[in-house]
């Protein structure tokens, strides 16, 4: 496996929709299934349709590369979701510092590395982590913009609101991608570049979500330590949907986890359909398991789509990108 780190710098505001009222709720990160769908649509727009189908075929059998969700970087610090497992923390610390620990959602990489080896979390450690997390929340500004639509004749107005995220200078999103087939390295970079031209997320018609690839390099030593350690616990850095043969053992395998339900509309190439895809549950980033996980591509094609609307199957990406947790 060759692992690369890619950093994206956004050229304007972004809109990554979240469930909630209308367009107001937005989140600052992009989950792996969204990224996969965006990449596939890019292929089918810029290349031939069958090229996207070939790649889907490869992913169903044996994915040539897997990737994490996109997380925030700010001023050279990289953030990862806090692993949900806290069995190693003493009862005393939990009683005294439970609230502070609960509010920690994002760990800077060195803290992430030490998370499990710190059986004696001191107050200083915790306030240190909090301080770094404040850099996380400082990386972007959330804005709700009032928007209006006017009647073409009477100029009667109707107001609504839309949420946007602005990343500050030196901040943006990054992800890790692991290639089992080295032939795909250049290809992946190329598709990512094209995606940057079109934009990721919503409100693209107003220029949201376009980005530049700030860097695309093999991972450095710190990240290497995250990916190669001997351990008996793993955390997931992408959304994960268990494969058929994993489901039997899942209850024993997962130590702590959270579930998210993803739903939405179907887009095929540049054409968006007024057709809802099947909603599907994922195990979220930060969940912890006893062993490595695999995952699969989920078929979410609606049962009886109206004729002539959909000429292909629709999939959602659920491969797990796991990182061992050092003891």
């Amino acid at each position, binding site marked *: 496996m060759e692992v690369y780190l890619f950093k994206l710098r956004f050229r304007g505001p972004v809109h990554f929709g979240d469930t909630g009222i209308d367009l107001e709720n937005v989140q600052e990160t992009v989950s792996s299934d969204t990224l996969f769908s965006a990449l596939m649509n890019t292929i089918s727009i810029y290349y031939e349709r069958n090229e996207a189908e070939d790649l889907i075929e490869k992913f169903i059998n044996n994915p040539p590369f897997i990737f994490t969700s996109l997380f925030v970087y700010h001023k050279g610090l990289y953030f990862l979701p806090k692993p949900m497992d806290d069995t190693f923390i003493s009862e005393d610390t939990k009683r005294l510092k439970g609230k502070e620990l609960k509010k920690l959602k994002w760990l800077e990489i060195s803290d992430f590395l030490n998370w499990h080896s710190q059986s004696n979390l001191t107050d200083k450690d915790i306030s240190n982590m909090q301080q770094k997390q404040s850099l996380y929340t400082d990386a972007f500004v959330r804005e709700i913009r009032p928007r*209006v639509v006017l009647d073409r004749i009477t100029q009667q107005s109707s107001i609504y609101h839309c949420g946007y995220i602005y990343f500050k200078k030196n901040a943006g999103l990054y992800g890790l991608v692991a290639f089992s087939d080295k032939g795909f390295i250049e290809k992946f970079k190329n598709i990512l570049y094209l995606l940057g031209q079109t934009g990721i997320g919503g409100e693209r018609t*107003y220029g949201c979500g*376009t980005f530049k690839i700030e860097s695309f390099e093999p991972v450095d030593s710190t990240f290497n330590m995250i990916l190669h350690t001997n351990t008996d616990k793993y955390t997931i850095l992408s959304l994960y949907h268990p494969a058929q043969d994993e489901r039997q053992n899942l209850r024993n395998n997962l130590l702590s986890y959270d579930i998210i339900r993803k739903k939405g509309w179907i887009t095929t190439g*540049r054409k*968006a359909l007024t057709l809802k895809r099947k909603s599907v549950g994922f195990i979220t980033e930060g969940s912890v398991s006893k062993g490595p996980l695999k995952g699969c591509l989920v078929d979410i094609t609606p049962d009886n789509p109206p004729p002539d609307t959909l000429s292909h199957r629709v999939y959602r990406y659920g491969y797990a990108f796991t990182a061992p947790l050092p003891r």
Partner: protein
Amino acid sequence: MDKNILGKVQINGKIKCLTGLHIGASKENMEIGAIDSPVVRDPVTRQPYIPGSSLKGKMRSLLERALSVELGIAGTTKRRNIGTRNNEIWIHVCDSAEDALQCPICRIFGSTGHNGGKNFPARLAVRDAYLTGDSVEKLSDIDTGLQYTEWKFENAIDRVTSAANPRQLERVPRGAEFDFELIYNVEDLHTVEEDLKNLALAIDLITLDSLGGHGSRGYGKVDIVIECIKGIPVESLKSDTIIAVEIKSLKELSSLITTFRGKSSGA
């Protein structure tokens, strides 16, 4: 039929404010004694800007009105109420992607399907227009008590009692300049010319109309200067080395369209 991209047309230029410009922001979280009607600002830099949605919405509505007879907006057929029953907002939207492909408006600006019809994603992307470096420098020196903007006091007077009803508005002063960028996705060759001509018309119409609020009282007169139009065929996008044809004004369109010709064998 798949819609593949044949290339992109990138239009860059400047929007110059010939009168004060007011694009309103939300009044939430405002303090007592603050301005009645603030303008939108970039939350990071605090500089006023022109949202892409304002520019695109203005272009669309002006073009709809210019072509209103053809589109049936003035009549009763091809328009849709996107408001509520009590607050009707009528605009022109095609009901299916097939209709939108034939429609000069929906083809450029996009449409949402209705009664099982497909959406037609916009071919045009309009980015937020930010203040130019020169304007930032100029505006940061002004002495109005507001950052980069001016206050304008307005007053309504009762016709009988002469009781005053004053209000304060915030606006970007005359002379400010914004950089704008439009990206048009080329999807087929026989509509490029019409689409780009309509785009040019919409841009011209804005200069004769106004941008932002209070246009009937002189706000928002702008001059739009197109500085560079680039035609980028899809092959050059893929290969990372951009070979583009550049023209200076939309009048030289035909030379731009040849860029995409010959690459359309698959479409």
